[in-house]
C-alpha cells in the first residue's frame, strides 16, 4: 500500500521537527516537505503529490494557514488538511469548518496521540476539538467572555478606536464602550491597552 504523502507547513522549526517525528514514526506516512511559509504551498502542491497537509494557522510572515487552506481547498479539493495551532482564538475552529478543513488539533492537546488524528483524518473522519482551550485572562477564563465581547476585543487588539470598531462591526459606539467596560470589570485589567495586549499575547483573539 502506498504511503500517504504529507506536507508540513509551520513557520517554527521546533514545531516542524515535532510533526516530522510524528510522520517518521508511522509506516503509513511519508514526508514530502516541511516548509516554513504558507505562501509557497501552491508551488509544492504543483510539484509534488500530496495527500495530507499539516498546516499551522499563525505564520510570522505572509498569509496565514487559514487563507492558504482556502486556496488549497479551491485548487486541490482532494488534499486533506489537518490544521494545527497553539492559539486558543475561538474563531479559528469556526473558520476552519467553513473552509472545509478536515481536522483541527491544538498543539497543547495531550488527550490523544497526534498520529491517531492523522489516521482518522485520512480515513475520512473530521476530527475537531469540542471546545477551544481555556486560557486565563486577568481574573477570569477566556470562556467567560461572550461572543460579542470577543468580537470587540479582536478589533481592539488592532489598535482601533471605539468609533472605528463600531464602524467595522456595524454597531453603535456606546455598545463598543459597554463591551470594553464589561471586559475590564470582568478581567480586572486597569485599561484597554492592558486588556488588548494580554488577550493578543495569550492568543485569545488574533486579528487577521
Amino acid at each position, binding site marked *: 500500500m502506498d504511503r500517504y504523502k504529507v506536507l508540513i507547513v509551520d513557520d517554527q522549526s521546533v*514545531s516542524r521537527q515535532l510533526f516530522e*517525528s510524528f510522520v517518521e514514526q508511522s509506516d503509513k506516512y511519508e514526508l514530502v516537505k516541511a516548509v516554513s511559509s504558507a505562501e509557497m504551498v501552491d*508551488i509544492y502542491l504543483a510539484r509534488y503529490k500530496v495527500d495530507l497537509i499539516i498546516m499551522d494557522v*499563525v505564520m510570522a510572515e505572509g498569509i496565514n494557514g487559514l487563507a492558504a487552506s482556502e486556496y488549497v481547498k479551491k485548487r486541490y479539493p482532494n488534499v486533506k488538511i489537518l490544521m494545527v495551532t497553539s492559539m486558543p482564538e475561538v474563531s479559528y475552529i469556526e473558520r476552519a469548518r467553513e473552509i472545509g478543513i478536515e481536522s483541527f488539533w491544538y498543539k497543547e492537546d495531550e488527550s490523544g496521540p497526534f498520529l491517531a488524528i492523522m489516521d482518522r483524518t485520512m480515513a475520512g473522519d473530521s476530527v475537531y476539538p469540542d471546545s477551544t482551550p481555556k486560557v486565563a485572562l486577568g481574573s477570569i477564563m477566556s470562556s467567560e467572555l461572550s461572543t460579542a465581547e470577543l468580537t470587540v476585543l479582536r478589533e481592539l487588539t488592532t*489598535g482601533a478606536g471605539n468609533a472605528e470598531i463600531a464602524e467595522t462591526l456595524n454597531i453603535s459606539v456606546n455598545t463598543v464602550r459597554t463591551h470594553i467596560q464589561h471586559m475590564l470589570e470582568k478581567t480586572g485589567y486597569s*485599561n484597554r491597552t492592558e486588556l488588548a495586549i494580554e488577550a493578543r*499575547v495569550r492568543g485569545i483573539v488574533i486579528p487577521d
Partner: protein
Amino acid sequence: MISMNSVGPALPTILGGLMLVLLWGNAFLLYSMITYGRGHVRCILIGAMIVIEYLFIQVMIYRIYHWNSPSIYIPRYEAVLNMYIISFVAVVFGFFVITVALTGENILWNRNHISRLSVKESFDKLPIGVCYYLESGLPILVNHGADMVSLQICGRIVRDGMEFYQLLKDAGEFIEMPGGRYLSYARREILVENNNCYVITLNDVTEEIERSNELEEENKRLSDLNAHLRNLNATIDQVAIQSEILDTKVRIHDSLGQILMMTKLYMKHENGEETVETDSVGYVSADVLKEKWKEAIRFLDSPEEMKDNQLEKIFSVAEDVGIKIELTGKLPTEETQVDLLAKAIHECMTNAIRHAGADKLFVKLSYENGMRIEISNNGKQPSGQLSESGGLANLRSVVEEQGATMQLQWEGGFKLIICYGVSNG
C-alpha cells in the same frame, strides 16, 4: 333730619374724615390694580373716579366751612340740604363700591392673564439671553441676560440688534462670561405681524464645554493608547510566537526529563540488556533509549528561523522543487519592485510546473526609468491563448494596484511582461 344750625363744627370734621378715608381707600385700590398689572383703560377709569370723588369732597368741605357766606348759593330748605348731603355721600360710596368691584374683578382677571409687565419680568428672569430686533437693527425686546452679555463684550446694553450680533460674531464661537461661564449664541429670522424680525438667543453652555473638554482629553488619551497599541501590535506577533516556541521547548524539556529518568533506571539495572519498567513510560530498550536521545537532541539543536527577503525565499523554494532560475540583469532593491518580482516569479513558477512541466525559468530584468520584468520557461508551449484566471488574474490586480502594467504573450511560448514605471512598448 340734620338742622343746619345744629351742624356745628362736628359734621364737617366727620364728613371730611370719612371722605379722606374713602379717598385713601380708592388710592390704595388703584395702586393695587397697577401693581397687578391690569390694562391702562381701567386704571384711567378708576383714576377718574377718584378725581371726581376728590372734587366732591372739596366742594363739600368748602360748602360746610362757608355755610353762611352770602356769595354762595345755599338751599334754604333743610330737606333740599339733606338731599344734597345724602346724594353726595351716596355718590362717593357708589364710586367706592364700583372701585372695589372693579379691583376684585381685576384681581380675578390677573389670576388668569399675564400682563405685559409680567412678560417683561419673566423674560428678564430667563436663564438665557434673548434679543428680538427688526431688520433695521431696532431692538423690540431685550432681556436682562442679553444686556449683560452686551455689557460684557462692549460695555453697554443692547442698542442695535445688528450691531449686537456683529459683536457676538467678532467675539468668537463662545462668549466667555465672568465666573468661568461660557455662552453660545444663535440667530434666526421670524415673522412678527408680517414684519421680518431676528431673534438672538444666548445659551449657557459652560457644562457642555466642560464635558466636551473632558471628552476631548479622554479621546486624546484613547488615541495615544491606540497608537501605542498599534506600535505594540507589530511586536506582539513575535512575542506570541516566541511564547509558542517556549511552550514547545518546555514540553521537550519535560520529555528530556523522562528520558534522563529512563536512562538512569536503565543504567542502575543490574542486567542492562534486559528491558526495565518505569512508572511513566513503560518498557524501554537500549535502542529505544538511543532513538529518544537522538530525537531530543535534534529538537534542541534545531536552528533559529532565518528571515529571508521575498526573493531569497522564492529562489530557495525554486531550488527545493527543482526549478532553475536563469536570471539576466540586476535584482532590484526597492521594496515595491522586489515584491512585484517575487510575486511574478512565484506565479510563473507554479504555472510552469503545473501546466508546462518546465524545470527552468528565465527571468530578464532591465531598468530604463523604471523596471521591466520578462519571465518565460522551457516547458511545453501552450496550445493557444489561455483564459486569464486564478493566480494570473490575482497577479494582474496586484500589478495594477502598484500602477504597473502586465502583458501576456502566448505565441512562441508563454511570456509574462511587467512594466513598472516605464512604457511597455
